[in-house]
C-alpha cells in the first residue's frame, strides 16, 4: 500500500483522517502531514488550525531547525476527550473511561443486569454514567460517546429464554434509548468483537497480525481482527461460534440445531452436569437455577482451578469441545494467534488454554508451516469494555474508518 492516502471529499472525513494520522504518528509536522495525505499545505494548515481550536491537537515544540523557518511539531492531546465503554454482563456492569490516547482513566463496576428488564436498567445506566462523569471530574462536553459491548446475554428468566441472545434485550433498541437519555452518541457491538478490539488496542498488536478472540460469558462469541479491523460478515454476525456444531448427535440447542458448542460446553451445560452429582453440588453450594448460573459456574471453575478432580473433569470436558471448535476455526481461517477473554475464563482459563493449545498444536492442518499461539488475554483488563470505549472513540473521532456494525 502506498504511504500516500488519498482522502475523500467530505471535510469531516478529511479532518478525522488528519487527526488519525497525528494520533498514529505520535508527533508529526504539518509538512509531513501534507506529504502523508496528499493535501496541499494550505488545506493542512486550515484543518490543523481547527483541530488546535478544538484542543484535540497541541503544538509541542519545534523540529530540528534546517536553516529556514522552524517547523512546529503537532501531537494528540490525550486529555482533550474521553469515551466510555460499557460491558453489559449479567454478573456485573463494567464502565471503562478511556482518554483520546486510549489509556484508562477510571472505572465503575456495579451490579449486573441479572434478570431485570431493559426499561428498568436503562434508567440506572443513564444515572450511573452521570455519576461516573461527576466523580471522575470529566465535563460531559469532553465525552465523545459511549460504546456498549453487549449480546450474549442470558437473562435466564424462563424456559423461553434459555439462550444467550435473550429476545427481550436483543429486540430492545438500547442504543437509541440510551442516546436519548444521556444526549451522547452511543455505539454498540457484540462483546467478542469489542474484546478483540480491546486486545488489539492494549496489546500493541501490529495491524498486519490477524487474530481471533474467543469470548466466554454465559455463551461464546468469536471476535476476528483482520488487517487491523473487526471482521463483520454479511450482517455483522461473524463469530457465532457458540452455534458451531461439535456433536451431531448432541443435545438439542435452543437455536433449533443440535450439538452446538453452547449446548454442550457453556456454563449452563457444565452446571447442569454438576447438579447431577449430588455430592459435588452440595459441597460447592450449587443452586442450579438460571438466576444463580454465574455463581454456580464460578464455584465449579474455582474448584477446578484448585485441582478438585470432579470439577476439573467437568471443565476439561467443556474445554475439549471448545478446543475442537477452535481447531476448526484455526483450520478454516489459517490463524496463528487466538486469545481467550471474558468472565467465563476468569478462574479456569488455564485449563482451557492447556487443552486448546494441546489439540491445536497436535492437529492444526498448518502445524508444519507455523505454530498457533493460544493465550489468555490480560487478566487485569475488561477487554470488552475497553474495546467498547475504543469503538466510541473511533466512531466519533475517526469516522472515516468506523468499525461499528453496519446497518
Amino acid at each position, binding site marked *: 500500500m502506498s504511504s500516500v492516502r488519498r482522502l475523500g471529499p467530505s471535510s469531516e472525513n478529511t479532518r478525522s483522517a488528519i487527526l488519525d494520522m497525528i494520533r498514529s504518528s505520535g508527533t508529526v509536522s504539518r509538512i509531513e502531514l501534507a506529504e502523508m495525505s496528499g493535501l496541499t499545505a494550505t488545506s493542512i494548515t486550515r484543518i490543523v488550525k481547527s483541530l488546535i481550536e478544538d484542543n484535540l491537537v497541541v503544538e509541542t515544540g519545534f523540529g530540528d531547525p534546517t536553516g529556514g523557518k522552524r517547523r512546529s511539531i503537532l501531537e494528540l492531546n490525550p486529555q482533550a476527550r474521553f469515551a466510555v465503554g460499557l460491558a453489559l454482563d449479567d454478573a*456485573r456492569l463494567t464502565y471503562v473511561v478511556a482518554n483520546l490516547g486510549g489509556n484508562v482513566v477510571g472505572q465503575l*463496576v456495579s451490579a449486573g443486569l441479572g434478570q431485570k428488564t431493559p426499561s428498568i436498567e436503562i434508567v440506572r445506566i443513564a444515572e450511573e454514567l452521570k455519576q461516573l462523569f461527576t*466523580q471522575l471530574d470529566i465535563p460531559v462536553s469532553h465525552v465523545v460517546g459511549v460504546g456498549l459491548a453487549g449480546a450474549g446475554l442470558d437473562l435466564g428468566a424462563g424456559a423461553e429464554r434459555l439462550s444467550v441472545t435473550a429476545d427481550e434485550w436483543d429486540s430492545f433498541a438500547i442504543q437509541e434509548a440510551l442516546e436519548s437519555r444521556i444526549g451522547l452518541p452511543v455505539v454498540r457491538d457484540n462483546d467478542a468483537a469489542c474484546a478483540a478490539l480491546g486486545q488489539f488496542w492494549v496489546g500493541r498488536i501490529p495491524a498486519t497480525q490477524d487474530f481471533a478472540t474467543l469470548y466466554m460469558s454465559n455463551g461464546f462469541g468469536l471476535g476476528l481482527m483482520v488487517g487491523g479491523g473487526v471482521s463483520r460478515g454479511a450482517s455483522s454476525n461473524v463469530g457465532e461460534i457458540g452455534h458451531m456444531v461439535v456433536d451431531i448427535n448432541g443435545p438439542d440447542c435452543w437455536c433449533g440445531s443440535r450439538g452446538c458448542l453452547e449446548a454442550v460446553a457453556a456454563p449452563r451445560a457444565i452446571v447442569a452436569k454438576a447438579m447431577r452429582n449430588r455430592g459435588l453440588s452440595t459441597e460447592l453450594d450449587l443452586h442450579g437455577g438460571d438466576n444463580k448460573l454465574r455463581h454456580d459456574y464460578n464455584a465449579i471453575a474455582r474448584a477446578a482451578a484448585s485441582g478438585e478432580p470432579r470439577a476439573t473433569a467437568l471443565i476439561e470436558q467443556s474445554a475439549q469441545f471448545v478446543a475442537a471448535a477452535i481447531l476448526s476455526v484455526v483450520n478454516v481461517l489459517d490463524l496463528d494467534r487466538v486469545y481467550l477473554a471474558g468472565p467465563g475464563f476468569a478462574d479456569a482459563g488455564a485449563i482451557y488454554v492447556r487443552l486448546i493449545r494441546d489439540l491445536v498444536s497436535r492437529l492444526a492442518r498448518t502445524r508444519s508451516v507455523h505454530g498457533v499461539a493460544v493465550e489468555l488475554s490480560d*487478566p487485569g483488563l475488561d477487554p470488552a469494555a475497553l474495546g467498547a470505549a475504543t469503538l466510541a472513540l473511533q466512531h466519533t473521532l475517526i469516522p472515516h474508518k468506523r468499525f461499528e456494525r453496519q446497518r
Partner: protein
Amino acid sequence: MSGIALAIPASGNGDHFLDSLVHALADLLIQNGMSLITKVIADGQSEEQLYRHWARVGRISGVVLLEVRANDRRVKLLRSLGMPFAAVVDATLDVDFPAVIVDLAASISVLRRFLAARPHRRAFYITRPVERVTTLSNTALIEAIAADDLFDVVETEHSVDAALTAGSTASAAGPVTLVFDSDVHAVAALAAFHTRGISVPEDVAIISWTNSALCQSARRSITALDRRGSEIGTLIGARIIDAIAGDQVSHDRAPEPFIIVGETA
C-alpha cells in the same frame, strides 16, 4: 446505588495483584448493593485533590486506601472531610483505623523457605525502579530485601524488554533463580529462554512474585507467589462496609501467602 471509591496510582497499571484485589472488592460490594469507582492518579497531590472532589460532589460513601504509610497525610485528610475509609496496611505499622493488615515479611519468609529447600544458587529479584514503585507492598518489599541477603535486587525500567535484558545478564554466569515482580515479565522470560534453548528450571529457574492466570496458562506453569490479592480485596470490602456502619477500629489480618509450585522452579 451507594459507591465506594478507590484511587489507583498510575504505576499500579498492569499489576495483577492489585487487579485481583480490586476485582474481589467489587464482587463483595455488588453483593451488598454497592458499586466501586476507581480513578487512576498520577501522584499524591492529585490523590488528595481527588478526595476533596469526592467529598464535595457526594454519593461516595467511603474510600479504600492503598499503601498507607506511617503518619499518612491521607488519613488525616479523609478524617477532616468526614469520609469513612478503610486501608490496606503493612504489619509493621500501628493503625487506629479500619484496616486489613498484610504481613509482607511473611511473603519473603515463604519464598526463603522455598528457595532453601532447593539446590543453592544465586537469586535475583528483578523489579521496576524503587523510586517509581508506589503500588502496595513493593516499596516495603524492596526495603526488606535490601536489608536481607536473600536476593540481589536488579532495578530496571518497567518493560518486558528491560526485564528480559536484566534476566539474561543475571543468568550469564551460571545457573540462577530469577524472581520477577511482574507475572507478565516472568511469562515473557520463559518464552525468551525457550527460544534461546536455555533450560528452565535447570539453567534458569523462574518465579513470579505475582500469581495470575497468566502464570498457570504459560507454556510451562510458572512457580508463583499467591499473595492472596482476592482474599485481601474481600476483607477490605467488609472493613469499609463496617466502617460506613460506624465500626472505626476493627482490623483483619490477611491470610498467609503461599507458593504455587509450577514447572519453572
